[in-house]
């Protein structure tokens, strides 16, 4: 017997960045919000303190903050002629669980999309002609940079972002990213300190005519009171950022930046250890009536609500739609349907720089967003004529960590174990930096998400099935951007050797085994055409007007940037339209 609870105004699935932002904004707007989260309650103050949190085995290797595959995983294959098999162990990407979601173990690399990124199809078609997009499901987002800018700016003030503006109200500023869209306000905090390898990268990039700048960082550089009145503290460069929570209150996360200021709100209720199974629909199928979930005792509960917000991790939002029958599933045979369409990832490559003994990188001194970056080869910041691809990536000397189990850079041709390996690890550990190429990912018809026909999760539901390999476009893009990174690496001072790795190299297929990045995007994309998008430009489902969707599942294709900034800009944009329009008069906000 399913227990039915009293109706609430809004039910929110997931207590990560977007879920807690939705709860805060909607509770303030007078909406009674129930947030349902599958994982445990936790807090930076009580759960993430050093030195216990600085446990590489527990958090980076055994992944204690991440989703457990025994409760939630997906099946995977490179192409639809293979049989998908379960991703039995976490690897390539690390969805979170618990209060704060994956937002507690992010790095804090906080970007904005380029104005041209948000109108990718029309921009490329105008500049190069439609043919450059042949075979790609590249789309416009349906929302412009100018529309998102106030919301991107607000999120900078939620996080206390540290950086140097490159474009302040249209005026180009020295030391910032000259390619970025105009900012209405400067960064709230000054940039991070630059470690010796970052200083060398900056010098060389400048000499080569590029435009280096310090990566925008949500690792806060000064004591800062955020837009909601929460207090953050300066980063200590401890080197335990990605995979870890921050007990220093220095990495902006959903718990200290939002939860703490909404937790006592009369319109806010949080239910932990509760697994949402499906969104329920009305008899006519046109609206959602609420969600059914398993509570902390394993009892099935129905929570009715006027409005349903899907704020789970990108992949699980799509899964929830598919098992609930929301929207039309994508069919790769016919190209029809939209849920699961335009799944994309991130295309990563890197150059490793091995210095002589004059340069001390001390890699254990790091921060998640400690980087010196050029954006000269990202988006359409460079001429794509005759290059054979669209998109690009930023190139960044990053010093995020030197955690000793995982960080063993060795020069090319070093054996992978044995005496020579051991010697090389010892000699290079303190004298190395990685230069990452953080590349975009286009959507193509053959990469998609649907339900697996064979494998089921702990709740008896079919696993999400991922079919993905790197598109040819992105292989060409990655090789090109990597060649530029390698050139910079070889021109740097005091360099003895340079290594390269390209996850999207020709002849190699995408693998779920080695960690790449937790930037899974698409599958429930935003747009202005219901035949190619799941939600309209306000994040509202075309087929069910009281369902709003948040997160990177909205991205029509993935940017050359980390997703948290763009997806939070979209979240505040959606919440703005919910608060100031939809909730007064619930209806489809666009005509299908």
């Amino acid at each position, binding site marked *: 017997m399913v227990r039915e609870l009293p109706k609430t105004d809004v039910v929110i699935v997931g207590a990560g960045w977007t879920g807690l932002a939705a709860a805060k904004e909607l509770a303030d707007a007078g909406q009674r919000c129930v947030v349902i989260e599958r994982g445990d309650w936790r807090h930076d103050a009580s759960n993430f303190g050093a030195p216990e949190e*600085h446990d590489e085995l527990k958090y980076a*290797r055994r992944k204690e903050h991440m989703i457990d595959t025994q409760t939630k995983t997906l099946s995977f294959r490179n192409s639809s002629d293979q049989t998908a098999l379960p991703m039995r162990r976490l690897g390539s990407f690390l969805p979170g669980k618990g209060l704060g979601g994956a937002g507690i173990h992010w790095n804090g690399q906080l970007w904005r999309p380029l104005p041209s990124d948000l109108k990718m199809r029309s921009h490329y078609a105008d500049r190069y002609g439609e043919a450059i997009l042949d075979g790609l499901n590249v789309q416009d987002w349906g929302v412009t940079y100018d529309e998102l800018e106030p919301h991107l700016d607000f999120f900078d003030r939620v996080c206390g972002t540290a950086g140097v503006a490159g474009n302040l109200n249209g005026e180009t500023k020295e030391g910032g990213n000259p390619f970025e869209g105009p900012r209405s306000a400067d960064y709230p905090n000054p940039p991070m300190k630059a470690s010796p390898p970052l200083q060398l990268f900056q010098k060389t990039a400048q000499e080569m005519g590029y435009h280096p700048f310090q990566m925008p960082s949500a690792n806060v550089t000064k004591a800062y009171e955020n837009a909601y009145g929460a207090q953050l503290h300066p980063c200590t460069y401890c080197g335990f950022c990605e995979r870890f929570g921050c007990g220093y209150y220095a990495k902006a996360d959903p718990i200290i930046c939002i939860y703490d200021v909404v937790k006592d709100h009369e319109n806010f209720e949080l239910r932990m250890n509760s697994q949402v199974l499906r969104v329920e629909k009305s008899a006519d199928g046109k609206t959602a009536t609420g969600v059914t979930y398993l509570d902390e005792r394993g009892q099935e509960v129905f929570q009715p609500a006027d409005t349903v917000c899907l704020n789970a991790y990108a992949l699980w939002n799509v899964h929830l739609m598919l098992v609930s029958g929301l929207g039309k599933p994508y069919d790769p045979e016919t190209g029809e349907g939209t849920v699961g369409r335009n799944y994309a990832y991130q295309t990563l490559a890197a150059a490793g720089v091995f210095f002589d003994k004059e340069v*001390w990188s*001390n890699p254990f001194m790091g921060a998640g967003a400690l980087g010196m970056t050029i954006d000269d080869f990202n988006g359409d910041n460079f001429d794509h004529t005759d290059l054979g691809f669209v998109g690009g990536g930023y190139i960044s000397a990053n010093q995020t960590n*030197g955690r*000793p189990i995982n960080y063993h850079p060795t020069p090319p041709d070093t054996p992978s174990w044995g005496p020579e390996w*051991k010697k090389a690890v010892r000699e290079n550990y303190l004298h190395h930096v990685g230069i990452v190429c953080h590349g975009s990912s286009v959507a193509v018809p053959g990469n998609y998400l649907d339900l697996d026909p064979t494998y089921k999760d702990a709740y008896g539901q079919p696993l999400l099935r991922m079919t993905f390999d790197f598109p040819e476009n992105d292989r060409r893009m990655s090789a090109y951007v990597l060649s530029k990174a390698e050139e910079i690496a070889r021109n740097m001072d005091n360099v003895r050797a340079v290594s390269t790795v390209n996850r999207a190299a020709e002849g190699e297929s995408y693998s779920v085994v080695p960690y790449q990045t937790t930037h899974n995007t698409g599958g429930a994309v935003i747009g202005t055409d219901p035949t190619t998008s799941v939600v309209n430009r306000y994040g509202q489902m075309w087929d069910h007007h009281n369902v709003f969707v948040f997160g990177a599942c909205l991205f029509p294709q993935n940017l050359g940037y980390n997703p948290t900034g763009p997806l939070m800009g979209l979240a505040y944009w959606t919440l703005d339209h919910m608060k100031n329009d939809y909730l007064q008069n619930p209806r489809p906000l666009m005509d299908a």
Partner: protein
Amino acid sequence: MPNFSRRAVLLQIGASGLAAVTPGAALAQNRYAALDTQPWSYLDGSEARFLASMADVLIPEDDFPSASQAGVVDFIDLQLAGPYGQGAGLFLEGPFADGTPEQGWQTAHTPASLIRNGIARLEDGGTRLVDLDANDRSAFVERLSKGEGFDLGDVPVQTLFDEIWALVKEGYFSDPIYGGNKDYAGWEMIGFPGAHAYYTDHVDKNAPFPAPPKGIAHVPGTGRSADTARPLRAQTAREEG
């Protein structure tokens, strides 16, 4: 009287290491010697000998300790006895099928049973890794790393090698609270100062940072971590030699 001796295991694996030349001196430095009266938690003696022999090919002794000297076998023993070895974080619902390398772990084994069955089948023919000389041990590990010439039934050779190598690195470089990285051997080797990390004033300086390592359970004034793995060893002790 224990029915087992880590010291005896060590003497046997000494063919490629310092122990063969100066057993007394090397033993004094060795984790096994200190733990000689402690029973294993998961491994048996022959599994321990195999893992010690293989681990010391992967990370041999030089100016810094070998893997086994740094407590890696003790670390692996505890890991296999604990949640990780028993399959925590591993989705083990069937059906099982041979996947592509890109699809990752597809065997029904837990890490502990993978390693137990893998070692048993590798040594099924009667030749034990521990009995080979240094060159032959290296050649064996080389072949194992490439998956060449082994049929281990439902134990995928590449997965077995990758799993052992991952555990060896974890044991050499993880915080000493887990039983490896004895006296910060791995951290001393590379210059990692440990878990107590506050670098605001140093991060932009081009200079060495010669702080001695301190782990999560560092005992002030000793240069060592507290042995927090001891309770787990006691809890999981096996009557086996």
